């Protein structure tokens, strides 16, 4: 076994090394730092989708901070006197007036406001794409169910956070959205009226609701989002990323690029590109022009009032749902309750528990680190397409008025098509997808058995024509294989595998109990793969 000798310690360290050593003296970071710099991330484009969400979130925080410096979350009515002429002298809330100021009177205000809004749309959209990637490749399977649950939580919170932000400027569009939200809260059986009064502080439009919503939007939900994102990434880091099967790849290894430098460089670059994309959208495509909608007035409404895309499916389900209101015993369960609370409740619950359902029905209790191609799990893929097609029908119905106008279709026809489509299309999609998966699998099997068709036809001496097949070549690794620790140190040999920091932290904690708990050190020492007491 050839081992590279450890490099000698640089005698006269430069400023970076000096800083590094200063930190190390206080926290003992070197082994952990080296391990993390050498951490390997597999290299597949689809693993970067989640990064879009992460970077969108960072950009949301950055642009959001800029907006908070100028936004005035207040319901107080003022007479507008800014530079947007068509609203001069109009009575409006300070929230709306300050949003106008951000848009017209603050330098770079509009571009950052628009980047913020586009980033919100992309944040939720990339979560959805990431979720689909994880779902269709089976990445949610054991041991990653908890991260799946956190991801579903992030998805739901992202939607809530987006809706809160959409509602803050107090324009006619967002006010209409909040009005509907209040009706939805009011529709909950038994406690609905109270729920609506508590949230809005009284009968709609309530009292001082915008400051309340503001706290939710800039502190409460972002705080939870941040904590969950930290947990999501921490778990990912700890459990290591999944990978597709490939040459040399097994359930027990990760092959790819190390964090430093390539993975870090690519990720930094990608962050910049996500920012650039959002800056382009924010500069070139106008979003949520609140000055056009006017200030909120409960007696006014604009046609084609739509929520942002991620609420669209709920708007669609509300439009499609039949007028089924249950009345009896002196009580009412309004029609709006079913499509806006029960339906998403069921959808998100099914989404959250899917990993456990799948494990139960397939009996697969194993841990998996290698991903599956969608065709390898026809039923799962079929279910996924079932859900997506159902979601799409609702989503399209959420914009059915705009579609009806743009393509000259009767609105009523759109509604009925949505009602029928929501019931008929998903099962068809399920059956077709499942069949397709099985067919593709059979083809793969065929190729594995008989090779790939070459198109070369040969005539056998018997006169029979046959097509030549060539065997499918085993795929070949692209790059040189290197181990992660370029310089092996004796301590590494002894398995700091479980992490120096973790173990030392563990020791520090157990240290308190050593006197009472004599058995613990013995137990660890007898553990074959984790020799203890090296420090």
């Amino acid at each position, binding site marked *: 076994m050839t081992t590279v000798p450890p490099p000698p310690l640089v005698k006269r360290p430069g400023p970076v090394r000096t800083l590094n050593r200063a930190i190390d003296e206080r926290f003992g970071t070197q082994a952990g730092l080296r391990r993390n710099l050498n951490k390997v991330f597999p290299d597949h484009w689809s693993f970067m989708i989640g990064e879009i969400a992460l970077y969108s979130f960072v950009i949301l925080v950055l642009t959001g901070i800029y907006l908070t410096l100028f936004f005035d979350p207040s319901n107080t009515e003022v007479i507008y006197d800014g530079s947007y002429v*068509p609203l*001069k002298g109009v009575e409006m809330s300070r929230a709306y007036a300050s949003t106008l100021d951000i848009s017209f009177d603050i330098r770079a205000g509009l571009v950052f406001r628009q980047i913020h809004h*586009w980033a919100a749309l992309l944040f939720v959209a990339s979560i959805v794409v990431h979720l689909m990637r994880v779902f269709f490749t089976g990445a949610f399977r054991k041991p990653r169910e908890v991260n799946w649950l956190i991801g579903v939580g992030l998805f739901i919170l992202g939607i809530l956070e987006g809706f809160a932000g959409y509602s803050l400027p107090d324009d006619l569009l967002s006010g209409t959205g909040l009005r509907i939200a209040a009706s939805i809260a009011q529709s909950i059986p038994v406690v609905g009226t109270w729920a609506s009064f508590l949230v809005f502080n009284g009968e709609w439009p309530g009292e001082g609701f915008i400051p309340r919503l503001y706290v939710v939007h800039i502190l409460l939900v972002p705080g939870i989002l941040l904590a969950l994102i930290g947990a999501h990434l921490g778990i990912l880091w700890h459990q290591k990323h999944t990978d597709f099967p490939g040459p040399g790849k097994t359930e027990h290894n990760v092959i790819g690029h190390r964090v430093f430098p390539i993975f870090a460089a690519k990720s930094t670059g990608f962050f910049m*590109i996500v920012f650039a994309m959002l800056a382009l959208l*924010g500069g070139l495509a106008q*979003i949520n022009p609140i000055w056009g909608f006017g200030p909120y007035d409960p007696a006014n409404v604009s046609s*084609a009032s739509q929520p*942002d895309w991620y609420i*669209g499916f709920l708007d669609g389900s509300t439009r499609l749902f039949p007028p089924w209101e249950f009345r009896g015993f002196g009580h009412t369960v309004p029609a709006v309750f079913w499509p806006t609370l029960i339906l998403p409740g069921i959808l998100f619950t099914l989404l959250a528990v899917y990993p456990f359902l799948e494990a139960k029905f397939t009996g697969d209790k194993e841990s998996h680190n290698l991903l599956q191609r969608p065709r390898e799990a026809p039923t799962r893929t079929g279910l996924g397409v079932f859900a997506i097609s159902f979601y799409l029908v609702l989503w399209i119905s959420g914009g059915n008025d705009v579609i009806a106008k743009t393509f000259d279709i009767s609105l009523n026809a759109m509604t009925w098509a949505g009602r029928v489509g929501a019931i008929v299309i998903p099962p068809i999609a399920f059956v077709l997808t499942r069949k397709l998966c099985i067919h593709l699998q059979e083809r793969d099997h065929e190729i594995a058995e008989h090779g790939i068709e070459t198109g070369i036809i040969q005539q056998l001496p018997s006169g029979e024509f046959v097509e030549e097949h060539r065997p499918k070549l085993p795929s070949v690794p692209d790059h040189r294989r290197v181990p992660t620790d370029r310089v092996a140190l004796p301590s590494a040999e002894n398995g700091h595998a479980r992490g120096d920091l973790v173990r030392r932290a563990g020791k520090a904690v157990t240290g308190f109990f050593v006197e009472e708990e004599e058995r613990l050190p013995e137990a660890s020492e007898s553990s074959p793969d984790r020799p203890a007491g090296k420090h």
Partner: protein
Amino acid sequence: MVLLVALAATGLLWAGFAPRGTAQDTADANEAVRQGRVLYLQGCSSCHGLQAQGGNQAPSLIGVGSAAVDFQVSTGRMPLAAPGAQAERKDPIYSQTQIDQLAAYIDSLGGGPKKPVITQTEWDDADLAHGGELYRANCAQCHQAVGAGAPLTYGKYAPDLGKATPTQIIEAMRTGPESMPLFGPGQLDEADAVAVAKYVRHVSEAPSAGGDDLGKYGPVPEGLLAWLVGIGGLLAVCLWIGARQKV
């Protein structure tokens, strides 16, 4: 702003054709009615009847007034191209002179709202912000917040106001064409009507502050763009970064 002035000037120009009270004008008006009747019999009478009394497919035009005629013909809705849920805006087939003659003829059959005349002073004095408030209270529910239009039931729709001239906007308010409710002077007086027209022109013509206006339709095109360009573009970047080219 240039456009606004140009439109206002057009309005003034049209005002020049409108009948006036002098003796010479009266003679002109009679001539216009005569010419209008000729045009009517050629182009309209097959549906609206020889006496403008209406028919199976078309309403009576007695008493609709010159505003209705000018609106319907100058927006190209009449003559109707094909029966449908609603008449569509298209290029007018009559010249403005001919339209005025037709209007004069129909006007001579009985009252109804007169084609409005917007003076430059009225236009300049109109309060844009007040027009906006009136627009949001009375118009935005159908024509959408910035006049992009929206569907009604069974294929009918409130049209896009992008091409409507101030005169046509006021004519539509006064005559309530097809599905549109009628806003008489008892609800919106002259100054209010001009203010609304001014607001509509403003939102149709003012450059959008934040880049392309995406058809002014709000969240639906925004969501589409976020997916197609935003997510689509970034996925393409992902593919590029993850591509195992080079090296």
